[in-house]
């Protein structure tokens, strides 16, 4: 039979007629992280399939790039992933620099790394906090957002905005580190690092929380690679891959840091808990990078002279960088004019969406919330 345009099977176990229900979850749902819609076929409380309906938040950002030009597109990249806008800024800067062969000053690279790592901590805090909230623990969310506020204050002082930074430019960063900013950032790190242990005491090893996440939506390493998962989602499955380590860019080779992977400490390798705990550990590693970067900021200019009418030579360029949601790709084709011919952005949330249908088969409907939260989806990043 047909229900709302979807074929529905009628099952009659033991003569009792039950029907699969087709449910619509989202787009305006408090725990789908933005406007993301799922078409769920459920048999009682058990999901048969959950198909993510992408495209609801499509704003054709890639097309806009073809109209606003190279310099003008920078504020738009903030909107690709608004939770972690700095890596998007850096991606657009890097791809344009590769197109035109521009060398970025060392001080600018340090400024970029500091800004990106601060933003990565802020993004992971939001992910960790909202993970607790989705599952029903409200307190961790307020704790996480409080620390995120401090990072926002730091970034506001650095670039004048709290969410849509527009901090980087082609050929460097727009503004130098403000005076007395570095001690403030170090003071924040001193205060923040013990708080990560506090989160673990507060929620991470809470028995109820662990029961909700352990052994749910297990993704094996081979599956994660097959489905093209990136970033913390891939590392949660036990694959040690980080663009910062394996395809180094910027000044990352100069810093010492580890790549945390999921170990299945409370369940199976690659379950929701592993993806969660990888983010917690990545915050520690980001703090390590930040300490090294803040201690060694070199002197010098922060912006190379780039003409206002920026015309890169004909050609194309592709760069990869590690954003908060994993391997982010930026591809740009130039036809030698003031406007890019084509821009393509490859994001981690989009690839994570593709595996949701597979892992949600046969689990409870309430676990879909935990699965979506563990992938750390940001809806605008899925659609661009």
């Amino acid at each position, binding site marked *: 039979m047909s229900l709302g345009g979807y074929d529905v099977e009628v099952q009659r176990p033991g003569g009792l007629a039950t029907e699969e229900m087709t449910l619509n979850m989202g787009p305006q749902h408090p725990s789908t992280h933005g406007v993301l819609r799922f078409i769920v076929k459920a048999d009682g409380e058990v999901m048969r399939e959950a198909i993510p309906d992408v495209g609801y938040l499509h704003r054709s950002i890639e097309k806009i790039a073809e109209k*606003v030009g190279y310099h003008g597109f920078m504020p738009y990249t903030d909107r690709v992933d608004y939770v972690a806008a700095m890596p998007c800024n850096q991606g657009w800067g890097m791809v344009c620099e590769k197109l035109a062969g521009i060398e970025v000053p060392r001080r600018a690279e340090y400024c970029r790394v500091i800004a990106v790592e601060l933003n990565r901590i802020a993004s992971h805090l939001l992910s960790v906090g909202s993970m607790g909230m989705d599952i029903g623990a409200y307190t961790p969310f307020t704790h996480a957002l409080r620390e995120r506020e401090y990072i926002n204050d730091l970034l506001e002082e650095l670039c004048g905005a709290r969410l849509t930074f527009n901090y980087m430019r082609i050929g460097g960063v727009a503004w130098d580190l403000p005076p007395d900013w570095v001690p403030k950032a170090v003071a924040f790190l001193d205060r923040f690092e013990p708080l990560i242990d506090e989160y673990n005491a507060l929620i991470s090893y809470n028995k109820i929380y662990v029961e909700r996440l352990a052994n749910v939506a297990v993704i094996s390493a081979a599956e994660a690679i097959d489905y093209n998962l990136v970033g913390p989602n891939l590392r949660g499955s036990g694959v040690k891959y980080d663009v910062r380590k394996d395809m180094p860019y910027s000044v990352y080779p100069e810093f010492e840091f580890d790549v945390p992977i999921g170990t299945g400490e409370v369940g199976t390798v690659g379950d929701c808990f592993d993806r969660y705990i990888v983010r917690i550990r990545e915050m520690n590693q980001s703090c390590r990078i930040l300490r090294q970067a803040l201690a060694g900021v070199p002197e010098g200019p922060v912006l190379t002279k780039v003409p206002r009418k920026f015309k890169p030579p004909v050609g194309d360029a592709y760069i990869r960088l590690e954003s908060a949601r994993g391997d982010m790709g930026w591809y740009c084709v130039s036809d030698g004019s003031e406007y890019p011919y084509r821009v393509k952005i490859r994001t981690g949330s989009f690839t994570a969406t593709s595996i949701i249908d597979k892992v949600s088969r046969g689990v409870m409907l309430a676990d879909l919330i935990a699965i979506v939260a563990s992938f750390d989806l940001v809806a605008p990043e899925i659609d661009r």
Partner: protein
Amino acid sequence: MGYFRNIKETVATIFEGMSVTFSHFMRRPYTVQYPDRVPIRIQDTLPFRYRGILEVDLEICTGCLACERACPIDCIVIDAVKDKDTRQMVLKRFDIDIAKCMYCGLCSEPCPTGSIHHTSEFEGADYSLESMLRRFVKTPVVAYKPKKGPETDPEVAPILDRGMAYLTDFAAGGEE
């Protein structure tokens, strides 16, 4: 007996989490009661680089249209015409659509005199879209022409000093 062990672990970990929560009764809150109970105006506490609502000092606007060209969403509209008799640039229109503006700051960077600049004002809510359109030119004005030496007009000089200070301080991070 897994059943009883589960209960024991649950209670133990809940109390562990609660101890963190209880410790927060003793800490100072980070929140402020906006807008009623703030000790000082929020606008005065914002950092120097804060990008609030745009403002234009027409006295030092040269009519070079650099901001209009830099704006990626065309929220700035300027009509500047050259007067044939006096050979001066006359500004007939300088509109900024605050409803459209995304506060990226790309317009204030190329400005040669710091005429267009961000203020720390951010409370821009209004009842109609028309009132969001800021018209800076009421009657046509002659655009500012940069002089070779220092500015001599006592009325314009302080404004130009402020504009130039804005340009340099914004890059340096500002010391108020």
